[in-house]
């Protein structure tokens, strides 16, 4: 009983917890993806602005083939901790000047043949842009931006997500206990009533449970069904009772008649009423009777089966002797006839 009582509630609690955990996990995943996108978008914006600034400053250097000033300009990128590599290419795609962050990871390998645009690596972003001097392209610039910061940011984010996850599961658990009770309890109680009825066969019990919705309908239908069963049972009992009474009356009457006519005695070995096949009748004939198919006048005891084929004739015979015998014989035929023939 206890285990049953628990199981539906536990199932409900587990269901709610699972749904809540799934929702939080999906939301966290969605936010993580969004976070990654927005981080990358802001990285692209930042690196583009830097490339444009540095490009504007180095455009003339490229135009006048002045490597030293170009490298000086690129060296100014040392104040930008996220720039791993900066490169200038001339219009033929040859490396013109380069800057590498001291101690920085190599990042995305830069190829001089890459076209303008942005290229994402696992941990870096490479941006290629044209360098333009007064509308005239004098070369191109490539910047490699370090994205590994995002990993630490993601880690921070994961910590927060884990805390939110645990908290939400905890709160959901507490809330679901109440919720599971309000849904599960009526069903648990109904199950208890049903079990009680099936054990005790007491159909007068009614489920007195307050519930709405489908559970309420179920309980009402259950009670209605119980009422039907109860009324049918009492009808059946009444019929059984009256049938018993009529059988007893019949047995008594038959015995009384047979004794009165003196043709024999009919002794029901059992007073049970039905079916006909269960009745074992022992018929004793005191005098030779006009039984045509048998011919025997002195048989003292026969089973019903032996005499069975002759029963209609007995009925005819009894027809002549007395009115009481007619009733009995007819009854007998009706009761035993079909099963005897079968």
């Amino acid at each position, binding site marked *: 009983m206890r285990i049953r009582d628990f199981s539906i509630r536990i199932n409900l609690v587990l269901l709610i917890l699972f749904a809540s955990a799934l929702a939080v996990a999906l939301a966290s995943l969605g936010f993580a993806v969004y976070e990654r996108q927005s981080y990358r978008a802001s990285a692209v914006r930042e690196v583009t602005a830097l490339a444009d600034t540095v490009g504007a400053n180095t455009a003339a250097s490229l135009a006048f*083939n002045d490597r030293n000033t170009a490298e000086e300009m690129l060296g100014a990128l040392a104040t930008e901790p996220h720039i791993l590599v900066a490169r200038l290419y001339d219009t033929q795609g040859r490396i013109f000047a380069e800057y590498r962050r001291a101690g920085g990871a190599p990042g995305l390998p830069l190829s001089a043949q890459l076209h303008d645009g942005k290229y994402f690596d696992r941990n870096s972003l490479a941006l290629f842009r044209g360098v333009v001097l007064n509308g005239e392209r004098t070369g191109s610039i490539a910047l490699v931006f370090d994205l590994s910061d995002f990993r630490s940011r993601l880690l921070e984010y994961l910590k927060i997500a884990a805390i939110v996850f645990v908290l939400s599961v905890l709160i959901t658990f507490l809330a679901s206990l109440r919720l599971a009770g309000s849904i599960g309890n009526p069903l648990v109680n109904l199950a208890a009533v049903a079990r009680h009825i099936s054990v005790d066969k007491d159909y007068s019990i009614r489920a007195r449970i307050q519930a709405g919705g489908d559970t309420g309908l179920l309980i009402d239908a259950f009670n209605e069904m119980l009422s039907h069963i109860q009324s049918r049972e009492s009808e059946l009992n009444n019929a059984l009772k009256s049938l018993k009474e009529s059988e007893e009356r019949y047995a008594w009457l038959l015995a009384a008649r047979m004794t009165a006519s003196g043709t024999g005695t009919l002794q029901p070995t059992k007073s049970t009423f039905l079916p006909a096949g269960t009745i074992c009748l022992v018929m004793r004939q005191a005098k030779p009777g006009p039984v045509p198919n048998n011919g025997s006048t002195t048989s003292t005891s026969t089973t019903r089966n032996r005499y069975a084929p002759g029963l209609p004739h007995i009925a005819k015979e009894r027809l002549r002797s007395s009115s009481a015998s007619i009733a009995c014989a007819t009854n007998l035929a009706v009761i035993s006839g079909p099963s005897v023939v079968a």
Partner: protein
Amino acid sequence: MSAWSQPPSDEDHMKAAFLFHFTQLVEWPADAFDRGGNSLFLCTLEDDALYDELENTIEGKQTGSRTIRIRHIHFFQATRGCNMLFISKRESKGLSLATFRNLPILTVGEADEFLSSGGMIRLHLAEDKIRFDINLEAADQSHLKISSRLLLLATSVSRYSGMGEGR
């Protein structure tokens, strides 16, 4: 034949590019241009390899809102209509740049004394690379504004006033 008559070299190519980029980074006064100001005339004195290079590479090129036209002049005095004048090392001998003082003509030369004699930009070779010096005073007198980006790339920026001493 002189060295200048050789087919266009890398050096000539670079010089042509430099001249073109100078036009991008120098601002002329508004009255420096005739005929609506749609053309910028770059004049050379000698009909040499550099002239061919200029004709082939930057003739007709857009610089800002103007189109570059290369013009070959035979006389040093026939500079009317020129916005920019290139004077090679050979031609600069015995020439006086005083003629151009206060005229809005960007003078570019190669002679060692080009700046001190009143020229504005002097090209020279340093470690096999073309570099340039600027005489800001001469440019100022002609009301030419030289971009700070160009000044930044100059090997040296000086202020020679005409034939006088520097700085």
